[in-house]
């Protein structure tokens, strides 16, 4: 999509070259393209309409600076408006007042409440809280069992009770139990229900009264279409939500639902679910979702991540070592670790514009496996071996292979790669390969 948008903006640029100003006439086509982009990202029709009006207002009459093209200026206006609408900054959980702090999770069937409850508990536990998981889902078969299993996976207590069939009494008893066990955050997982099911919504209202939660979080499937707006609106009006969690955002859905939700309720999106594993819960960053909705790729996040991982000092040190030909296996391992800090290869690549198109045709899991194997081998060496690779003889290789669960061939392969890399580096630093600079590889 970005490619298409970009292409269209190029033609736009050609048309208004020399005009120096954005006018209703010359942005008409660009607006149409943004409209299609937003609708294809499942932003609600109404929201798109109002949004474009606002963009139009902002854009018309804007003088085009010499340093950027009109197309760039226009997309910047769109992007800024989008980011602003999604919420200007990250909004943390509100855990004010004396503990225990109850959090209530509500949503449609299959939106990911139970998994999210587990993720939230793990997130809070890592922050030093003592969460307690409670399920009031007495309707779906084995729903309680599911949360119980999740709680034991993350080592967080689960409130279990004998033969209690009524969600309301569960709410009340859980509070007592929390006080007894010194839990400071109570996470209530409720049964999934439709936003038009009056009876079940009433049941939620009752539960909310019994719990008096400091957060009522609605989980919404990130793949939701136009209906996201109806869902968010209905739950917010009937129950009163304090925020949203957008789930299943690890797929290729563009997540336009986020914009619809925010626009209709004005409540913040607090987290996004980015994977099946229980540590896959991220804080919501409006600017990232803005790029994603527009299909621009998340360059900002990528740059940030890269900055975090490749600490400058280490990079400089590495460059010095390369120049002086002291690149050891110890440094090699450090490099691997830096790459790993960025996240999975897939998650890194998905931030690059246009990658989603190729995602299915690439098999990245193999590369990931290869990296893991290499790290295991390096970890099985002694520090002495890593610093002086030349001492690694046959018997050491056998030991390393055994220790890392690989074969001697794998160890040989790694040493070969290391030697090649070293040779290449030597050539580069001596300027034998023209046109290359060592910095290109490691920065």
């Amino acid at each position, binding site marked *: 999509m970005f490619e298409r948008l970009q292409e269209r903006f190029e033609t736009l640029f050609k048309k208004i070259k020399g005009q120096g100003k954005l006018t209703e006439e010359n942005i008409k086509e660009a607006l149409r393209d943004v409209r299609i982009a937003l609708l294809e990202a499942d932003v609600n029709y*109404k929201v798109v309409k109002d949004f474009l009006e606002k963009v139009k207002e902002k854009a018309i009459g804007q003088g085009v600076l010499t340093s950027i093209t009109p197309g760039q200026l226009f997309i910047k206006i769109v992007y800024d408006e989008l980011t602003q609408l999604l919420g200007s900054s990250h909004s943390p959980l509100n855990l004010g007042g004396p503990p225990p702090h109850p959090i209530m999770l509500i949503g449609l069937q299959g939106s990911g409440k139970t998994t999210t409850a587990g993720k939230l508990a793990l997130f809070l536990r890592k922050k030093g809280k003592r969460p307690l998981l409670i399920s009031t889902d007495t309707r779906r078969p084995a729903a309680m069992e599911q949360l119980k*299993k999740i709680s034991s996976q993350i080592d967080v207590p689960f409130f279990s009770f004998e033969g209690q069939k009524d969600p309301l009494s569960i709410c009340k008893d859980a509070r007592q139990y929390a006080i007894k066990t010194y839990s400071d955050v109570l996470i209530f997982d409720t049964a999934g229900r439709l936003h038009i099911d009056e009876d079940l919504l009433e049941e939620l209202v009752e539960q909310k009264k019994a719990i008096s939660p400091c957060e009522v979080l609605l989980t919404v499937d990130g793949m939701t279409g136009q209906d996201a707006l109806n*869902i968010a609106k209905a739950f917010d009006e009937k129950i009163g939500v304090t925020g949203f969690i957008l789930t299943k955002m690890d797929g290729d859905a563009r997540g336009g639902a986020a914009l619809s939700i925010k626009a209709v309720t004005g409540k913040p999106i607090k987290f996004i679910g980015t994977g099946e594993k229980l540590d896959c819960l991220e804080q919501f960053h409006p600017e990232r979702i803005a790029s994603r909705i527009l299909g621009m790729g998340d360059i900002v996040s990528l740059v940030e991540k890269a900055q975090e991982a490749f600490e400058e000092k280490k990079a400089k040190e590495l460059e010095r070592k390369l120049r002086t030909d002291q690149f050891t296996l110890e440094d090699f391992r450090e490099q691997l670790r830096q790459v790993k800090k960025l996240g999975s290869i897939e998650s890194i690549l998905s931030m690059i514009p246009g990658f989603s198109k190729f995602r299915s045709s690439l098999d990245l899991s193999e590369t990931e496996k290869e990296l893991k194997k290499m790290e295991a081998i390096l970890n099985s060496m002694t520090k002495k071996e890593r610093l002086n690779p030349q001492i690694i003889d046959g018997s050491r290789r056998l030991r390393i292979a055994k220790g890392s669960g690989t074969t001697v061939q794998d160890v040989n392969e790694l040493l070969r790669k290391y030697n090649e890399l070293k040779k290449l580096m030597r050539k580069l630093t001596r300027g034998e390969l023209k046109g290359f600079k060592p910095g290109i590889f490691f920065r």
Partner: protein
Amino acid sequence: MGFLERIKEGLKKTRYELKARLEAALKGPLDENTLREIEEALILSDCGVETSTRLVEKLKEAWKKGHLKDPKDVKKVLREIIGEILKSVERPLRIDNYRPFTILTLGVNGVGKTTTVAKIGKALISDGKKVLFGACDTFRAAAIEQLSEWAERLGAEIVKHKEGSDPAAVAYDAIKAASARNVDVVILDTAGRLHTKSNLIEEMKKIKRVIARETGSGPHETLLILDATNGQNAIQQVKSFHEALTVSGLAITKLDGTAKGGFILPVSELFKIPIRYICVGEKLEDLLPFSAEEFSKALLEE
């Protein structure tokens, strides 16, 4: 008035009912405005920009040709156009050509696979068939317990392993057990997986290979389950799953909310995969065979 207020205000006025929108649109003569309103209604049903625009183009054509004199006919003509698209995918599932007939379900997380398996099971059992469930979702916590409970309630046979075991091995055992226990239909419930996760797609391919090897002819149905609440990503789901696993039928769940599942129009046009079932409620009886006519009516809220 701020942006948010404007939307809220707008929502109060138009409650998203296609019916009301269409009727309002049809009060005046058929002009650009009316057509735009129709397009809006279609987009709001998740039909997608391209399909909606194309449908409106067709209406315009019909109007120009004189097939559409009275604006009141717009709905009828639109229903016919949609009905025509959907008619080609209205092919109910026939389970009498193989025995045991093997159904492999798949879909992204949370679309309602396990519940749909139970619903299909219930329908078949009411039909006098002997049904066996294979609990191939060994990943999600308590998925096996959930299916077991359904099996018990419905009186279906079940084959299950421990959580975390190989789903292909469960499929193998389910098929072996089906032959031994003289079962008519095997329905395999699998773990939800996003269509973008290549390792999980590979796992599914393996399950399919095992079924093919053990049955010689199966799976006789590879049923992709789609959530009607989803938007344009549903097209992507069908595309990826179909490319990797050759889907032979679709089931659309959660049509009891306000979502219309309009994506089935582009999906039907692009992939021509038969739609077997729709789910219109939480009760076990709420599974219906897909009908093009009924669906077009529902889509246009008639």
